[in-house]
């Protein structure tokens, strides 16, 4: 076995061990949903575009990104998301093969707790938490793998 092959195997083993150690790479979008004369969806929201055309999001036709980005999760270490409206934190409780167990808490702008949930999602799937304020909607979408 050549040195190059050994290095490749080592990288794969390390990557696998890191994944099974309980870490996860995630990304999120904070979106505001409104009803406008012309339907618009921000180009950055392309990963969510098809979902935003289905109920319950079909009540609105204009979706704009408020914040978003990628973040890494380490097992049992809560990660805060910098939201434009309110606050949220994500905790990676555990992961088994393709299932990722999270704890997600979302607070409103007034600091009151909006939601506290413990979902177990398939890696790569989206978890969306939304609220409606009068006629507008506020959406937080998270995916981890």
């Amino acid at each position, binding site marked *: 076995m050549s040195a190059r092959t050994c290095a490749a195997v080592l990288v794969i083993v390390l990557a696998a061990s890191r994944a099974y150690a309980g870490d996860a790479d995630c990304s999120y979008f904070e979106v505001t949903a409104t009803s406008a004369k012309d339907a618009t969806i921000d180009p950055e929201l392309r990963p969510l575009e098809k979902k935003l055309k289905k109920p319950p999001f079909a009540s609105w036709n204009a979706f704009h990104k408020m914040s978003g980005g990628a973040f890494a999760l380490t097992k049992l270490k809560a990660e805060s998301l910098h939201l434009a409206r309110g606050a949220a934190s994500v905790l990676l409780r555990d992961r088994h093969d393709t299932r990722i167990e999270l704890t997600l808490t979302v607070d409103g702008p007034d600091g009151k707790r909006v939601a506290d949930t413990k979902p177990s999602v*398939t890696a790569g*799937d989206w978890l969306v938490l939304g609220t409606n304020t009068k006629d507008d909607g506020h959406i937080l979408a998270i995916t981890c793998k």
Partner: protein
Amino acid sequence: MTRKPESELMELADREVDDAATLGGLTSDERAKVDAVGELGELVRGHLELSADAVADAKFARAWDQIEKRIALASDAEAPTGANTETAETAGGGGGLWRRAGRWFDRYRGHVITGAVSASAVAAIALYVHAPVDEARRSGSGQPIDVRPAAYRPAELESLDTPGGVSSVFHLEEEDGRTTTVIWVTPQDQDMVEDL
């Protein structure tokens, strides 16, 4: 006008003499006699030719029978004798058995082909008729066959707490089999709605 001798009329009827002048000089009785004899001669010749053909066919049939028998005898002689013959034929490697099978197939080729075509048609119809049943069974109507990959399981919520709001959970199935889970929180009171 002198009467023609019978021998001359026979020659005319047999076309042995083809003399237009002579034919033109015949009386009506003589012409009728020549025509009748000629027609009779044609009939006799036709009958004889048919008889000759029948004899030839019978002879050929007998000849082919004899040829086939000799071929069969020759193949039997070439095949192993006694117990070896039986063993060889039982094993399906015997030339005689193979030839007999070939002859049987040649003889009943039409039946075999008709049977095969009919069986194929029946099989095709059966497959076509039963296909929806199998599809329905696969889609899972009480049958534990609808197996989905673990990778496409929707999210499971161990707990969900939405203080001050009413929550609804949706599972949006994607075209690629993935599932998006949506937790929708509707505030209960207007004050909270305005705060959000």
